[in-house]
């Protein structure tokens, strides 16, 4: 069981797991159990420079661009329903391969077609983000968003960032109006 973070909290991954080389960032939520439109949630990762923006559109890792920075960050694929045990979507980060000018990686979850389906995070249960050591499968840090969302349709769940020579992870839990497109624009992606 890793460090349990609350909103705004952070932890040094390098200290918690010395010799860490690669992580699985798992994002999860409970699928809808009632009738009505299904919830399709999408996890994305943004590779951000000092400026807080992507270096190029290729740094936006999502369901249509599963790999970035020469394979340093790889999205394991889209889960359309949120069904099944364990993480719903996983992004693998090879820490040593992350380019030096990438200062942080933001992990977000957005609700697909939230507006037309009239859905928001307040209707999603048990959302979380966790960081797992790729080498031994042990959870290093976890953040249960539980109450840190309401009627948002896009959320920044957490951030992986450099701190000196260390990698740290911070629980963000920040909502964002609109869906994936405005979120991506906010990070400097040119969304068509």
């Amino acid at each position, binding site marked *: 069981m890793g460090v349990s973070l609350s909103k705004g909290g952070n932890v040094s991954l390098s200290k918690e797991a010395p010799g860490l080389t690669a992580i699985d960032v798992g994002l999860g939520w409970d699928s809808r159990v*009632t009738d009505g439109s299904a919830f399709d949630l999408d996890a994305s990762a943004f590779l951000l420079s000092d400026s807080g923006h992507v270096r190029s559109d290729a740094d936006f890792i999502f369901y249509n661009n599963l790999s970035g920075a020469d394979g340093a960050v790889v999205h394991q694929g889209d889960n359309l329903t949120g069904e099944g045990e364990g993480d719903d979507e996983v992004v693998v980060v090879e820490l040593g391969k992350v380019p030096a000018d990438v200062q942080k990686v933001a992990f977000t979850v957005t609700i697909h077609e939230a507006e037309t389906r009239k859905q928001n995070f*307040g209707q999603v249960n048990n959302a979380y983000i966790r960081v797992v050591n790729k080498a031994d499968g042990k959870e290093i840090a976890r953040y249960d968003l539980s*109450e840190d969302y309401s*009627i948002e349709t896009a959320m920044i769940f957490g951030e992986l960032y450099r701190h000196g020579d260390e990698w740290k992870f911070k629980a963000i839990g920040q909502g964002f109006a609109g869906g994936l497109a405005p979120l991506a624009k906010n990070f400097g992606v040119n969304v068509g």
Partner: protein
Amino acid sequence: MSAAVLTPGANTTLPAAQRIRVAVGWQPTQVPGMEVDASAFLLGAEGKVPDDAHFVFYGAPSSPDGDVRLDTDAGDLIGFEIKLATLPARVASIDICVTIHEGQARSQRFGDLERVFARVLDGDTEVARFELPTAGMQETAITLLSLYRRHEQWKVRALGQGFVDGLGPLARLYGVEISEEQRPPPAPPKPDTAPVPAPAPVNLSKVTLEKRGHSVSLEKQQDSGFGEILFNLNWNQHSGAKRGGFLSGLLGTDSSAIDLDLGCLWQLENGQTGVVQALGNAWGHYQGPPFIVHGGDDRTGAMAEGETIRINGDRLSQIRRILVFAFIYEGAPNWAAADGVATVRLPGQPDIEVRLDNPSAGQGMCAIALIENDAGRLKVTKEERYFRGHPEMDRAYGWGLRWVAGSKD
């Protein structure tokens, strides 16, 4: 502080009140033939009820300690009185739901209404409000609000999600087992398997006659009679298996299934009396006296529909009174094992259900309900009185028939 107006998914903190009220309503307030009910599920941390007693609805209007009470006398609203301060810690949340009674069977859904709403009140002050426009919604059961604990406080979240198939799947979501209208066909008895006592399922049927002695009285329709009054008796087909196998040999009991019979004593306006029952092949007549007909004998309870008696309500003027009864023809008078349910269906009325589960030992006869011609009105009174047999019951009601022992072919 003005009331928080919630949209689906939104939440707000509730004031630290000893008790609050949640009022549930809908518009338009009346749709002909539609019955909207509200219910509350008291849930543990896993989102399930600790037991069926934590499901508060029309059939069980209070939670075990009275912390949540249903109040249906609030005009167009259905209210819940919730004592937040005294709720046991194991109750992590309370979900407030609305359902359309038999919505699927009647082709009704929340889309037939304009909106449903819920108000959270602290005294007379509205602290939160949730209005859900229902246009286009196919659901017949919706969770409106979830009241939940958060950091020693209570909060409320608006949801507005539900099920097309109604209260059944909704109750299952919350871990409440319910009895189905249509029971699946019985499984063959397994004599070598010890019976596992199952918890009695919560019954979702309308129970309009709550207690012995309660009655309903119906006025005749303008230009027609009362139509057909249907009595149905159904019982647990597995009762034989409970006494089967190893123990039956050991105890020397008969392993045959319980045979429950439905019958009635009748008395016409002209004073004529008699009985309709399978015993003695007294099947009756529908169009002629006694205007009662038995639907046939079910020796095992295996017929899905059980046994029925139909009463010609259009001839009520010629009927003085009818006493409908059930008795155990064969086997020990074990009502608990028989698990009998009598249903009375009156045209245009909710079904009346009488569970035959309250006997004294050794009494194989149960008077279920008394139908009387009460100065032209049709009066149905729940009896549920248990007797040793026909003669004793006859004496208790002053019917005056002569009884001799009989047997079926």
